[in-house]
């Protein structure tokens, strides 16, 4: 009973306060308290996330399931970064408080934490993202086929945007005077027409639809009609 009633009451009260605070300045302080609680809970969620990461990966390693070596690397990396950060290993002493232990900056590249960020995490994440270029090119070759009218329109739009995003667009159509009647044929004009009119019109419709959906879902949650977020036990 309490397991269901208390979460519903917390959600209904918090939701109602945030809605009322938007329209009434007298309840601003209440909304600030609710938001502070929200941010504290979001910080606690990181701890829960870390616990979950440990549980899942430890289980994978102990049962020697497929890919257990990756799980072990994850655990070692997690434990190392946590130790480097918490104990400020290799951190330089604070200029303001040189006699106080652990007062220095743990993020400088002299520290283990800063070194791993600068020379391992940063290049690795950038590399992972850069790999997308290879897969996008491969997918473009295999999947972008002009099979019907819709795909021809999509291809035409893609060509215009791809060319207009580089100096090639200006090179190919820059000679058309910007004040002539044919100025709309310039790649930069076509790009603006596509993005600011066609694309924006579509996105506005989607955004308004999503906003109405969120409002409806929020109302169902605040009123306790939708309880799908609660545990089924």
């Amino acid at each position, binding site marked *: 009973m309490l397991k269901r009633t208390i979460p519903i009451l917390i959600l209904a009260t918090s939701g109602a306060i945030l809605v009322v605070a938007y329209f009434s300045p007298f309840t601003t302080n209440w909304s600030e308290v609710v938001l502070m609680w929200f941010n504290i809970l979001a910080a606690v969620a990181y701890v829960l996330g870390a616990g979950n990461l440990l549980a899942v990966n430890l289980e994978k390693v102990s049962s020697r399931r497929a890919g257990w070596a990756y799980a072990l690397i994850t655990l070692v990396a997690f434990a190392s970064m946590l130790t480097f950060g918490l104990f400020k290993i290799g951190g330089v002493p604070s200029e303001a408080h040189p006699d106080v232990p652990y007062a220095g900056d743990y993020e400088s590249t002299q520290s283990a934490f800063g070194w791993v960020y600068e020379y391992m995490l940063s290049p690795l994440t950038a590399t*992972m993202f850069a790999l997308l270029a290879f897969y996008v090119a491969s997918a*473009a*070759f295999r999947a972008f086929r002009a099979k019907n009218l819709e795909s021809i329109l999509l291809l035409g739009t893609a060509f215009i945007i791809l060319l207009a995003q580089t*100096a090639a667009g200006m090179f190919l159509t820059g000679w058309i005077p910007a004040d002539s009647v044919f100025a709309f044929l310039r790649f930069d004009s076509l790009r603006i027409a596509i993005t600011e009119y066609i694309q924006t019109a579509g*996105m506005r419709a989607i*955004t308004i639809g999503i906003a109405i959906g969120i409002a409806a879902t929020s109302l169902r949650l605040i009123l306790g009609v939708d309880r799908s977020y609660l545990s089924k036990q």
Partner: protein
Amino acid sequence: MTNTSHSNHSSNATQSSGIRGFLAGLSSLDRRWIFLGVALAVGIPILLKLSLPEVPGPMARATFNAIEKIPSGSRVLLAFDYDPASQGELQPMANALVHHCASRGHNIVFMALWPLGKQLADKTIKDVLKEFHPEYVEGTNYVQLGFKTGNEGVIKLMTTAITEQYPNDASGAALTDIPLMSGVNKLSEFKLIGTISAGYPGAKEWVQYADGASPEAFTLVAGSTGVQVSQLLPYYPKQLEGLLVAVKGAAEYEMLVTEKYPVARHQGRLEEGRRRMGPQLVAHLLVIGLIVLGNVAMIAARGAKGGAR
């Protein structure tokens, strides 16, 4: 005569089917050739330092003008809402934005909604602010608030109570003791908010929760990755007064900034966007070429099937 004509016709048909067969066979091209093509398309322009002229577009001009129009010495908030994965696309505009704000004499407050955004802001402070504007003093001319968890909750609370959200700056100094933040407790007390955004939470949340709460109080500008710009276009130019889109937006904005506020050394730090435009041009042309080739292969394969029938 008839035999010769028949022979020529047959030879042409064989040749034609050979070319068609070759084109049709491209459908099953090993993707490692494509990967090699991409590596060359990006690598060669980088090595040759291929740089091309850019013409600033209306969005880059709008961003530039938004920062120019606020009075010199205004308090501005810059949110670094991205991580190293998007650094290649977004760092050039972050560099130019910080240099522009400092050149105008604005006082800058840095913060981050992404955990690794703080480190990127630190890097920008070191590489751009301290390098080109050594007169900027921490606490008086700039402050680093750092990262706070809570996504849009952070923005929402900052609209009414910044000191509740950030009692201290990133170094641990109480916000009330920092001259630049003295008496500042609401986002509406900033003249301009700029967000460099790679996704959620980012530019969209700043529009919805900050601009939505105080629409007339400050100017909002954003720099965005190419993939999420479609979500931001509906907000431009009324809610987002300026919008920098991907590397092209950065390159155009860099041109405007460095034309008006040139630097004497380390110019490369403010030319990163333009440096990336060369590889982008060749890579885009390669993708167009691959799409055309893929379609030619499809048509040839259809023709070959028709011929076989």
